Every structure is written in structure tokens, then in C-alpha cells.
């Protein structure tokens, strides 16, 4: 049982790396979207799942990565070399936001992050150097799908490994303590703000890397695409539906979402139903299985004794 995650991880890695050899472009595109989903969901989960700080403003980091890449590429920097700077800028921005925002708790933090996301989007649409609301185009001749696919797949694997490593570390334990009871954690000497900032910066950097690759792949970005609220929304929904605070949850969630998206886009009548679907899924998960798909699987696989309490003690705060 313990070897199963590692084995399935290795199999997934081998499959992703070999995929360009035998799969057609359409399927590869779907895998690319799936990888993007895995990255975003796993990265969000570092802060939202492990530390329990639900942010609805993650499109800001994706946008920072994307804009950094396009703006530098337009000035002649090779696109892939712009990735570290985008990640660094996003991490710095996350600290600048986090320093004040982490003084807020629970839903107050969440509302503040909606505000941050909106402020960033509105600003990107209003200032001149970002091309305003009409967006920016990458310089022509800078696109190589296979390279981009490998980069995205590698980043997806990296983000899952990162999540596993974080959870197994003392850092992960501190984040779990913050989620369960921040006051108790702080009274035991956990520097909650520092750990939250660190988790925020780490996840922001990973999301920005994905944002850079997003820009390189689509060759065109605008505030309406990379800073979109709906993007922030799906970044939250994937781990929530899959299972918040687990390693497999965000991956499962990304799998469900990319499948839904691909299937939905194929059916014209259902094309406009994705909000209904996302919202409906969210309602169902919260009402019936707050543990998401992972929680559901756990419930189905473990036989509980009839006397065992049905519900776990909910986290405080």
C-alpha cells in the first residue's frame, strides 16, 4: 500500500516523458492542459490545503509569470530564460501581499485575496506597458510545442514531488499545525506568519513558472485571460474537488477538471454549462464529502467499525 503512490508516480512520469513519441498533437495538448492543472492545483494546495489559507487571488501569480515572459521576450531575451525572473517576481509579490494579508484569518483573508486579484487585473488593464486590456503578443518564431510540453510535464512532476516533500518535512508539520489551530501552534513556538509567507512564496513561484509556459504556449496574453477571476476559481476548485491537503487530491481534481473541460468543449450545448458544473461540484463536495474525491475513496476503501465515530473532529478556526 505504501509503495503504490511512488509506483504510480513513476509510471505517470515515464508516460508523460514518452508521450510525444507516440501520441498525436491533440492528445498532447490535452496532457499539456492536465499538467497545467496539476501544477496550479498542487501549488495552491501548499498554502490552501496544507496551511488552510484559502486564497482566491492566484491568477495574479500566473499573470505575473506570463507578463514577465512576454515583456522580456519582446526585448529579445530567450523565452525560457525569463522563467526564473517571473518566479522571483511572483514570490516577492506574494510576500508583499502576504505581510499584511496574513494578519487576517479565515474568510477575511479569502476576501482580501479576491480584492488583490481584482486590483492586479484592473491595474494590468489600465497601465500602458502591459499593452492595456488588448494584451500582448509574443515575438514570432519563439514557439516550439515539444519543448514547451516537456517543460510543463516536468514542472507538473516537480510540483507533486515538491508537495510530497513539503508535507513530509518539518515545514509541512508546521503548516498542518497552523491549519488545525493557529493559536496553539503559535503558543508552541511556530512562527505562523513566516511559514505562511514561505508557503505562499513557494506556491506563487511555481504558479508563475506555469504562467510563463502558458504565455509561451498560447503566444498571446491579456488581462482578461491570465488575470481572469475564473482562473483563480478553477485553481481553487481542482484541489477542493480532489481533496484539500492531500498529495493525490490536486492531481485527481486536475484530472477531473481537464477531462470535463475537454469533454464539455466538445459538446456545443454544454459549452456554457461549466460554471453550473463547477458550482454544482463545489456545493456537492462541501455538503456531502468535504474530503473531496480522496475522502470519498478513503471512505469506500476503509471498512470502519460500526462503533467508530462517523465524523472526524473538524479543524478549529
Amino acid at each position, binding site marked *: 500500500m505504501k509503495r503504490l503512490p511512488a509506483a504510480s508516480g513513476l509510471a505517470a512520469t515515464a508516460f508523460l516523458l514518452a508521450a510525444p513519441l507516440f501520441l498525436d498533437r491533440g492528445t498532447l495538448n490535452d496532457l499539456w492542459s492536465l499538467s497545467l492543472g496539476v501544477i496550479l492545483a498542487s501549488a495552491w494546495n501548499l498554502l490552501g490545503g496544507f496551511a488552510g489559507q484559502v486564497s482566491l487571488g492566484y491568477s495574479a501569480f500566473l499573470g505575473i509569470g506570463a507578463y514577465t515572459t512576454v515583456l522580456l521576450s519582446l526585448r529579445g531575451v530567450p523565452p525560457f530564460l525569463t522563467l526564473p525572473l517571473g518566479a522571483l517576481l511572483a514570490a516577492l509579490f506574494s510576500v508583499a501581499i502576504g505581510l499584511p494579508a496574513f494578519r487576517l484569518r479565515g474568510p477575511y483573508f479569502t*476576501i482580501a485575496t479576491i480584492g488583490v486579484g481584482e*486590483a492586479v487585473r484592473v491595474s494590468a488593464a489600465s497601465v500602458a506597458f502591459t499593452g492595456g486590456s488588448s494584451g500582448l503578443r509574443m515575438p514570432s518564431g519563439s514557439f516550439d510545442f515539444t519543448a514547451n510540453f516537456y517543460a510543463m510535464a516536468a514542472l507538473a512532476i516537480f510540483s507533486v514531488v515538491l508537495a510530497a516533500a513539503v508535507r513530509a518535512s518539518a515545514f509541512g508539520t508546521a503548516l498542518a499545525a497552523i491549519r488545525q489551530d493557529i493559536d496553539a501552534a503559535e503558543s508552541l513556538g511556530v512562527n505562523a506568519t513566516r511559514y505562511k509567507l514561505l508557503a505562499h512564496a513557494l506556491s506563487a513561484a511555481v504558479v508563475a513558472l506555469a504562467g510563463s509556459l502558458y504565455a509561451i504556449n498560447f503566444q498571446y496574453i491579456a488581462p482578461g485571460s491570465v488575470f481572469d477571476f475564473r482562473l483563480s476559481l478553477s485553481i481553487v476548485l481542482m484541489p477542493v474537488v480532489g481533496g484539500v491537503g492531500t498529495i493525490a487530491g490536486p492531481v485527481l481534481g486536475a484530472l477531473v477538471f481537464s477531462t470535463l473541460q475537454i469533454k464539455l468543449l466538445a459538446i456545443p450545448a454544454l459549452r456554457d454549462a461549466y460554471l453550473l458544473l463547477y458550482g454544482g461540484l463545489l456545493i456537492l463536495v*462541501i455538503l456531502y464529502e468535504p474530503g473531496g474525491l480522496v475522502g470519498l475513496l478513503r471512505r469506500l476503501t476503509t471498512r470502519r467499525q460500526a462503533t467508530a465515530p462517523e465524523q472526524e473532529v473538524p479543524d*478549529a478556526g
Partner: protein
Amino acid sequence: MTDLATVLVNAFLAAGLYATMAYGLAVIYGVMRIINLAHAGIMMLGAYVTLTLFERFHVDPFLGLVAVGPLFYLLGVALYRVLGRSLRRSGAAPSMDSLLLLFGVWLVLQNLAYYVWSGDTQSILTGYTLKSVAILGVRVGAPSLLVFGASAASLLFLTLLLSRTYLGKAIRAVTQNRDAALLSGVDADRISAMAFGLGTAFAGLAGGMLSTLYAFTPDFGRSFLLKAFCIIVLGGMESVAGVAVGALVLALIENGLAVWTTVPTSFQDAVTFTLLFVALIAFPQGLPGLFTRLARRPVPR
């Protein structure tokens, strides 16, 4: 001098609408300690219902509000009954589950609106939409004036409800001290349902009023949700007066920025959100809390 009059008159008129929309959020928070993210969706729905009443049945939008209020009250009570299990107040702090749940409701409402009314931009154009009147030498659009009248009427109704009826007393009691209210025999579940209905009704009313001032799509309402949130953070979440003060402060800042600075209007929302951010951090108890804190500050010896 005329600039000052422009700012004051416009801010005062806008504050009425802002207070209506913020109170819907405040009453639900007060009684249930829930932040109703579906508020934006309900405002959007209010706008569309007003539009349908206007286009199909030729009901004047402001007359339509009379129907929108009770209709949305029932919608709110129904929503509470369906989602009740997760909406029931669990502790002193708002739960993340209820936030995400209501977020889901917002998305579903948005999609319903896409189905029923399509994603096209809609607006309500009446005979008086483009008329204007002069107040203190400031030209003011007729709809803004009517919106102010309608919000003043609904806030007056609310004040009477809160001060004169059992429901109002019970709402205030649960908001101030839930345990004491329960000990005195207040039926928390019933009051919560009614408060949720009341909050939904006010969101619907605010949406109906917004529809006479702005064009809207199913995506409408997000920036107004943030404004409403900003107001209850500024004004404190407890009283109608606090909400009104918060609304006035926000409206003054917005109108002041528009008249006295060169900040482009597209940036205005960013300013609101920054203000929200600053307010949340600088005085989490709201302006009333700030005043009490200043008043209580020990005198240095």
C-alpha cells in the same frame, strides 16, 4: 466650491445604494457569522428580474422593486432551508465551508442567468433614464435620485423592522450575543432563516436599483460585492448606522478621487480594493472600533 458640492451630492446619493447593498451582507454576517459570497450573484439576479418585469410586463423598475423585495426574501429562506446544514453557525469565526458553499451558489446563479438571459450586456432604459435635475447647483441624473429615494425607503423600513418588531429584536439580540439570545428563548434556526431571507431581499433590491444605473451581464456584481464588503469592514458589521457611515466614507472617497485627482475611472475599483485591504488590516473592528479604541486609550500619566 462647485467641485465640493459635486462630490458631496454625488457621494450622498451613492451612499444610499451602497448602504442597501452592504446591509444585506451585514445582517447575514451578524446573525450567522457567514460571509455570503453569493451576494454578488443575488444582486445580479435582482437586476435581471427587474429587467424581465420591465421588458415583459412593462413594470417600472422602481415599482418592480416592491415585488423584488418579497420575492428575494422567499428565495433567501428557501436557499437557507436547502443548504441549511452547512450554513448553520458553527462557532465564533466564519467557517471556510460556508464560504466555499456560497461561492458555489454564486457560480450556479451566474450560469442560470447565462441560460435564461444569455451573456449579452443588458440595460434598462426608461423615459427618465437620461433626465436630470439640479440639486445645490449640481446636475444629477433622475435615476440616481430615484435610487436614493428607494434605498432611503428600504433602510427606513429596515430601521423600523429592527427597532419595532420581535424579529428585529431577535436579530439584534443574536447579533450582539448569540448565547444570551438562545438562553432567552430565541429560535436560532428560524431567526437565521429570516435573516438570510432579509439579506437576500436587500441584495435583490440593490441589484434592481443597480440595473437602472449600470449595464449588466451575468458576471455583474463582483466589484459591488467587494464594495459592500469594504463598507461593512469600514462601518463595522453590527448596526445600520455603522453600515451607513461606511457607505458614505466609501462614496466620498470614490467621488473625491474622480473630481480632485487624475486617477482614471478604470482605476477606481483598484482604489476601492486597496482601501478594503488597508481597512481590513489597519482597523479590523471598523471605524466604530477605531473610535472606541481611540476613546479608550489610556491617558498617559
